[in-house]
């Protein structure tokens, strides 16, 4: 190994999941130089998934969601400090407090933030919240403790649905407003969307799909209710805005890097691109802020908001930061995600939105336990399980090997040939009909993408 790569100065901007795991990996792989982590939150790294689950049920205090360290990282921690820019020429990170941090290699892991309610005045009403940080979750938990008469959740993606679930578990009245035809439909398509809608209603959620909230109503600075696009109104003391995430890339506007609303683009080795599409060799990206090409999904640039992706990508980025070219690894992990809501464990592998058809390969909607498999142009691209997570390993393999869709029938718990229906997700980007790519090798350093000619 070349000595200089394990020495020098590394700066990581973003001190959360990806930042921490990268720091640990750098040390584990022998980086002996100076390591600095910059994070604008005042806390040491903590874990976000519990914020919309256990924290809202009062099982874990928001302040106890800290991420356990895997190993000492021996770093300078600049917490509560925002990075305001990067000077790629002098190789410095500019800090909002006026400081400058020189680096030899830089890792950008600034993640995302909650998309705010578009009307700033309404967003300032007391009782209107988002959930992304520890403070957010503590604030919401406190409001739920106070026993609001009704909670309005705007947006029925994963976070919104989990929050609605926590409210119902606490016996609170909750209205969920979703512009789309069903909860989770944007992420999981029509079959599971319909399932989720029935599930929410069965748990007493007042679910309103196909409408938008046009305004939040207030009186004396406090939220009192909301008006919908169909003219109806409800009363509510709390409104949780769960409209998805915004990538924290604005601070990179003058950096010359390929940063925009969809993230900071990088290559398969986590190296950032400049705005001209030229790959850098000293700026790396990982976690929710990254956009990266994935061979299994026809090299589309994926932006994922997945805990597991943040960890794996951080590990690959850190490895590549201290490894010479031939020893670098691609980030080829198959995306995976989980959610728990309404007593169910939902898990996903692959990219469900990258699909044109789905089939229920195991179990059934009636049992409330099932595996839905997604296909795109005749090959398996994703699978989602409801209370059946142990089977997903099998489908991960099918995705990795670009196995034909629909998968061969014969599962013990789904003996008849499965019915294939349209996946009803927003169409994947228009693609040329290309060759199929599969992954081979099982060890991280032996993984390869192999291309099979079209036909």
């Amino acid at each position, binding site marked *: 190994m070349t000595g200089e790569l394990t020495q020098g100065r590394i700066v990581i901007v973003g001190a959360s999941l990806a930042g921490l795991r990268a720091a640990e990996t750098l040390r584990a792989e022998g980086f002996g130089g100076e390591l600095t982590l910059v994070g604008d939150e005042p806390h040491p790294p903590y874990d976000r998934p519990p914020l919309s689950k256990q924290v809202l049920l009062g099982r874990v205090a928001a302040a106890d969601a800290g991420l356990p360290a895997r190993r000492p990282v021996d770093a300078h921690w600049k917490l509560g400090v925002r990075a305001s820019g990067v000077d790629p020429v002098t190789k410095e990170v500019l800090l909002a407090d006026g400081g400058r941090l020189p680096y030899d290699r830089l890792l950008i892991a600034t993640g995302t933030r909650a998309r705010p309610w578009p009307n700033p005045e309404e967003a300032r009403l007391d009782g209107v919240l988002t959930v992304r940080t520890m403070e957010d979750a503590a604030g919401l938990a406190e409001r739920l403790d106070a026993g609001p008469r009704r909670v309005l959740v705007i947006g029925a993606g994963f976070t919104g649905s989990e929050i609605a679930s926590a409210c119902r578990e606490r016996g609170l009245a909750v209205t969920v407003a979703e512009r789309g035809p069903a909860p989770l439909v944007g992420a999981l398509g029509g079959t599971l969307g319909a399932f989720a809608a029935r599930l929410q209603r069965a748990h007493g959620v007042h679910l309103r799909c196909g409408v938008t909230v046009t305004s939040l109503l207030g009186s004396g600075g406090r939220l009192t209710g909301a008006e919908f696009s169909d003219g109806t109104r409800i009363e509510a003391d709390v409104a949780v805005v769960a409209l998805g995430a915004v990538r924290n890339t604005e601070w990179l506007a003058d950096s010359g890097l390929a940063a925009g609303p969809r993230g900071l683009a990088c290559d398969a080795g986590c190296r950032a691109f400049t705005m001209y599409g030229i790959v850098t060799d000293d700026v790396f990206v990982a976690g929710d802020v990254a956009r990266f090409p994935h061979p299994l999904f026809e090299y589309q640039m994926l932006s994922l908001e997945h805990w597991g992706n943040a960890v794996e990508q951080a590990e690959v980025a850190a490895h590549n930061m201290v490894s010479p070219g031939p020893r670098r690894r691609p980030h080829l992990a198959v995306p995976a995600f989980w959610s728990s809501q309404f007593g169910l464990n939902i898990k996903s592998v692959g990219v469900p939105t990258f699909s044109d058809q789905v089939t229920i390969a195991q179990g059934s909607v009636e049992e409330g336990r099932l595996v839905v498999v997604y296909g795109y142009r005749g090959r398996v691209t994703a699978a989602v399980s409801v209370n059946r997570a142990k089977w997903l390993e099998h489908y991960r393999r099918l995705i990795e090997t670009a196995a034909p869709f629909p998968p061969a029938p014969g599962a*013990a718990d789904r003996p008849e040939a499965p019915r294939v229906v349209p996946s009803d997700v927003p169409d994947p980007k228009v693609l040329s009909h290309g060759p199929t790519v599969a992954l081979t090798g099982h060890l991280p350093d032996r993984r390869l993408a192999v291309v099979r000619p079209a036909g």
Partner: protein
Amino acid sequence: MSTETLLERINDYAHRADPYPLYAELREHGVARQNDGSFLVGTYHEVAALLHDPRISSDVRHRTDPDEVRARSDGLPPSFIAVDDPEHDRLRRLAMRPFGPPHSPGRIDALHGALVGIAGELIDGFRGRDRIDLVDDFAYPLPVTVICRLLGVPREDMPALRAWTDTVIASLDRSPGEETWERQQAGTAARTEMAEYLGELADRRRADPADDMISALVHDAGPEGPLARWELMTTLTLLMIAGHETTVNLITNGMLTLLRQPDALERLRREPELMPSAVEELLRYEPPVQMLPQRTPLTDIEVGGVTVPRGAPLYLMLASANRDPLRFEDPDRFDPARRDNEHFGFGSGVHSCFGAPLARLEAQVALAALLRRLEGPRLVADPPPYRHSPILRGPRHLLIDCTTKDDGAPGES
């Protein structure tokens, strides 16, 4: 070149002490069809794929061979280890309620003190002796006492359960022999008697609950309702047998391995915090369950370029997969600090070992106590005499010469 098939040679008692060269041969051959129409798979990635494949059944009633189907069709219905989803899933979930998370997260941890106490008492019994049989004096009574305490089986009934269990285990052995049929009949009878005993015990607990798992099973049913009586009987029988026989071999194989590798033994004495990873390594290196002989494809499937037809007996050779050089670095080396150790000691997938948290704790406590208190332990015979079974493989006896220290460890009584 031997004319026997690989399976016959693996089953041959002569190879019991060291089957690993045969497994290496198996991995060379890839998926191997045997003369009797069964298939052996011994490479890691192929075993992994099959363990997770929903088209692979654990229910031998799906075999093409009518004799096999018949052999399993008399007596009680199969327990959840031998049926498929969704039935398996429901039964396993109901059994898990009183055993582990999410409903009973503390049950196993709560046993820690009792376990340390039982191990300590058994070792106290070695005092004044300079030779012990690790199997009969320690590795057998420990898990049996624990599983009986967990379930709530009275002490005085333990010998009867031991006898039934031995008979059932003997009947699992599919290696050809004169008494195969008799063994199976006896096994079926013993399993039924044991199940009836456990069913009656459950009836008593229904009327008069105690602080044990059987009481919890009959009283805290959960939203899906309780297990039917016969389901309760087969489930308890499964827990009893599975909780009995495997841990014995893990503890015994563990001591045997450490006595063969004095460096590792010394290291564990110096760094007792390595024990959890050493136990994982033992589960890889000398797994008590060497193979899963009960799998059957429900449809023709392709594995490693070979088509295994529907209904054919499929043997997943866990111990072989655990030594696959394509998966593990230096696989024949015992490395108590090994990382990246996703072994198949507990299987994998939906049937992966239900009792794994308990088994891990038992082995960790047992081996730690032995290392702390046995002075100058030496093997009397190497290899030791083995049990007959090639499936649940382990020494029948393990004689060790040693002296026994009093337990000076603080807070461990």
